[in-house]
């Protein structure tokens, strides 16, 4: 392989990216060295097994990926603003929508949600950490190196360009030579393994580590949604693992699972992909429902209306989400009976979803609604998600879907559910739980600016796309001609996208501004919260709870406050707390995964094998590891508790 093939060349945009990547790296190394922060980085972050720090790292990565995916989106919108634009050529456009879609779903939405669940779930159930802290660190680092591997593709070797769905035969060697789709297969595999382990970890955590008294039906709604999400992950991700493995064999070793020759079945890929893919969208939407439930009930100052119905409806949605996948290819010609079946199962999801919408509305009713930034995101979710939801039902009607499929109508629909559902939820959760992560509150004024810019921009960007779809504009077109009459709506859409971009910049500025000047949260309970995470200090002590709380009601902390006692810590009852030790191994093993993956992408098998040996070595070392953690002394707990003002 020549160097000119190894590094992507010929595009001014790419050279600019090369330069900025190198400069950023030099910058980071310089800052770390200058401020003597290497040791801090290693001890506090790279080796940590603390669920809160891991959560923070997930969220930082997700925001970075939102930036990357957002830049991709803006480039696409720039290209589509006017007919016959020459800003991006088709190859470049194809790479960009592929990376945009893949990154937004797998490296933005997923880690954002997983980050929030890492921070919040153990706190909500009154636990000191997750069930397997070491595994949790491995999960994060595998996700992280998977994301990095995927992200370097555009400067080293070339990006995947067959869509985030990577349909065969297009994604096979025959039509997609080069390493781009190898990156897709390998990077998703590595981070997918991390996600699967997260699913197992949190399932066990929620089932086994709840505080005494917290029965299943007293769990906060967010924890419930995470529990169900874990079940979805555990059933869905192995399918992706297998599909990607077969894809890897096809691409690296010329097997013929999905190719056109020798009995390969390209539709098998489409089926496997969506058997994972549809539950996947529920993996990012159910936790969002959980976040909205928490925020809405806190800022309406009311218990969640119809808690039980809410629980049953998430279970129902989760079940149905496994029997709807064919709605992604009604047009394959599987026959009217098959299509009718999947039409009906898909429409059925609207029922439990509708139940949830009304339950949120009735939680608000008779409440005392405070319009904080977190609440604004949660409220805006309702009307916007309803628009996405009803158009989803329209798409579910097979005979009509033949007209919407693959058009901008579909693009509008899934952005309405993914952005108004998941992205709004991530922003709501970020503002809501920010004090728990960093000890200060995100500035509300700037937060509201972000909200209005982004929310209005979002509608201006995506609402016209429904109509572009009805005009016959199909997804993944890199340009269009003037005579089609698509220009005005495309201009409108691009204006909206720009507003969203500005909203994102304000959010980033807010993070900086609040870190410097933000209001510190001394109480640990800035919003008058209802669940146990608000019984801890902000930021949360390393061990979460000095004594494990006792749960008597659904809104456990609210009940403690109402009964006048609050969450009191009796210093007499303190005992030394056992905590797991840090370990550098998860990070190092994941680095080995990165090189193994990189070797596979380029078919440099020697590198892949050497890296694999290191991975196995890491596993062996782990099994001989007899470090079973350490104890935090009562004195130290007392000191910490007094400092944070929570202790007596």
């Amino acid at each position, binding site marked *: 392989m020549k160097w000119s093939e190894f590094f992507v060349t010929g595009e001014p945009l790419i050279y600019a990216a090369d330069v900025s990547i190198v400069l950023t790296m030099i910058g980071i190394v310089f800052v770390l060295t200058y401020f003597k922060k290497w040791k801090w980085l290693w001890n506090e972050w790279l080796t940590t097994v603390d669920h809160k720090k891991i959560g923070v790292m997930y969220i930082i990565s997700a925001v970075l990926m939102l930036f990357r995916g957002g830049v991709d989106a803006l480039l696409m919108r720039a290209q589509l603003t006017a007919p016959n634009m020459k800003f991006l050529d088709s190859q470049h456009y194809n790479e960009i929508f592929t990376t945009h879609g893949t990154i937004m779903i797998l490296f933005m939405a997923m880690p954002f949600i997983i980050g929030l669940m890492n921070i919040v779930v153990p706190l909500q159930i009154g636990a000191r950490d997750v069930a397997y802290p070491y595994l949790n660190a491995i999960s994060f680092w595998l996700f992280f190196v998977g994301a990095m591997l995927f992200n370097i593709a555009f400067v080293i070797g070339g990006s995947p360009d067959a869509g985030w769905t990577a349909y065969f035969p297009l994604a096979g060697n025959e039509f997609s030579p080069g390493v781009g789709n190898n990156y897709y297969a390998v990077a998703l595999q590595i981070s997918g393994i991390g996600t699967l382990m997260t699913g197992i970890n949190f399932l066990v955590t929620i089932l086994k580590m709840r505080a005494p008294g917290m029965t299943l039906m007293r769990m906060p709604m967010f924890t419930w949604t995470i529990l169900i999400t874990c079940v979805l992950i555990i059933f869905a991700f192995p399918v992706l693992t297998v599909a990607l493995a077969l894809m890897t064999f096809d691409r690296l070793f010329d097997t013929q699972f999905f190719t056109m020759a020798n009995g390969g079945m390209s539709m098998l890929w489409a089926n496997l992909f969506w058997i994972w893919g549809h539950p996947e969208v529920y993996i990012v939407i159910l936790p969002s429902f959980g976040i909205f439930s928490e925020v809405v009930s806190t800022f309406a100052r009311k218990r969640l209306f119809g808690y039980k119905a809410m629980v049953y409806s998430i279970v129902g949605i989760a079940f149905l989400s496994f029997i709807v996948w064919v709605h992604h290819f009604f047009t394959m010609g599987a026959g009217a009976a098959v299509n009718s079946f999947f039409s009906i199962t898909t429409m059925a999801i609207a029922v439990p979803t509708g139940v949830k919408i009304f339950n949120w509305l009735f939680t608000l009713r008779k409440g005392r609604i405070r319009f904080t930034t977190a609440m604004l995101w949660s409220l805006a979710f309702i009307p916007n998600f309803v628009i996405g939801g*009803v158009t989803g039902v329209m798409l579910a009607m097979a005979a009509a879907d033949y007209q919407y499929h693959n058009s901008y109508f579909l693009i509008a629909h899934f952005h309405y559910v993914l952005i108004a559902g998941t992205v709004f939820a991530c922003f709501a959760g970020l503002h809501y739980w920010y004090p728990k992560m960093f000890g200060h509150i995100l500035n509300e004024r700037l937060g509201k600016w972000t909200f209005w810019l982004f929310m209005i921009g979002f509608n201006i960007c995506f609402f016209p796309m429904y109509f572009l779809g009805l005009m016959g504009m199909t997804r993944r077109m890199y340009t269009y001609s003037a005579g089609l009459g698509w220009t005005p709506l495309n201009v409108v859409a691009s204006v909206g996208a720009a507003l969203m971009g500005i909203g994102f910049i304000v959010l980033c500025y807010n993070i900086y501004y609040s870190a410097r000047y933000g209001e510190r949260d001394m109480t640990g309970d800035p919003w008058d919260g209802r669940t146990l995470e608000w019984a801890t200090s902000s930021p949360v002590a390393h061990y979460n709870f000095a004594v494990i709380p006792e749960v008597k009601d659904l809104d456990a902390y609210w009940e403690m406050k109402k009964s006048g006692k609050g969450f009191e810590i009796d210093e007499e009852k303190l005992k030394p707390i056992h905590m797991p030790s840090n370990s550098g191994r998860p990070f190092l093993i994941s680095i080995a995964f990165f090189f193994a993956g990189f070797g596979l992408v380029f078919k440099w098998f020697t590198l892949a094998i050497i890296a694999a040996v290191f991975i196995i070595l890491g596993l062996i070392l782990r099994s001989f590891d007899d470090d079973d953690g350490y104890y935090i002394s009562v004195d130290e707990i007392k000191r910490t508790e007094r400092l944070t003002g929570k202790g007596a």
Partner: protein
Amino acid sequence: MKQKMWKWASLLPLSLLLLLSGCSENMLVLQPKGPVAKTQYDLIMWSIGFMLLIIVVVFVLFTVVLVRYREKPGRDNYEPPEEEGNTLLEIVWTAIPILIVTALAVPTVKATFALEKPSQKSVKPLTIHVTAANWKWIFSYPEQNIETVNYVNIPEDVPVKFKLTSVGPMSSFWVPQLGGQKYAMDGMETELFLEADEPGSYMGRNANFTGKDFTHMEFEVVAQTKDDFNKWVKEVQQTAPKLSKGKYETILKPGLVGRMTFSNTHLEWIDHAKQNSHHMGKTEEHSENTKHHEGMDMEHHSH
């Protein structure tokens, strides 16, 4: 102030709707020119009715609740009641969506079954084989023994049975004004019935991404009166050149081509629906098949 903003925000979709009324003549899906598209149009309109109803109900409830129960001076000390739920209400808002879904499911199932068959029984359908290749559409009329590239003429008021297949990546055959799309897949055959009920020119395109020049993979459907159509067929049979195997191979090479017309069809020697195009085998080009399986050179795939 906030309240105003909220109202404004909820008006946003509406104002966009107004803006759109200007572009409505371009909304091809909503301008059906045949019974298939008409069936789908009716279904779409039926569903939009219900959807607007749902949107209105939710938006109104939403606005009322926010306005009435927001924190405002005088309500600072109001302590919300602790309600657990309300079984009756919950049954109501489970039952109504079930009714709506049923009202949508019944016509959906009917339409889905109906679209599998020609829209009229009395007229014998015209069969046209459609072959999608990177990045062009090839139409073969077996009964008339003619072939066209990137355009297709059809008679009005006659159901047309398109038999779809593909050489290479999966494409999707879509003529919005005549009816919804269907996939064309390599080594497989799918069927799509369409019909035009007035003469005219209708845009068709590939709706499923197939790589580099996918965007330009368009075709025109020209619906003619039966007489005009028959005249055209005769003319083609008499004047158009013959398609040779060699010529056909060049057409299949990845790239864009203009419109073409031939007085025979490639079905004489190959039907990609029956045979995996990949191993069409016998043609000269594939003598280097072994090379293909060692190196991943793109050149080879010009079959």
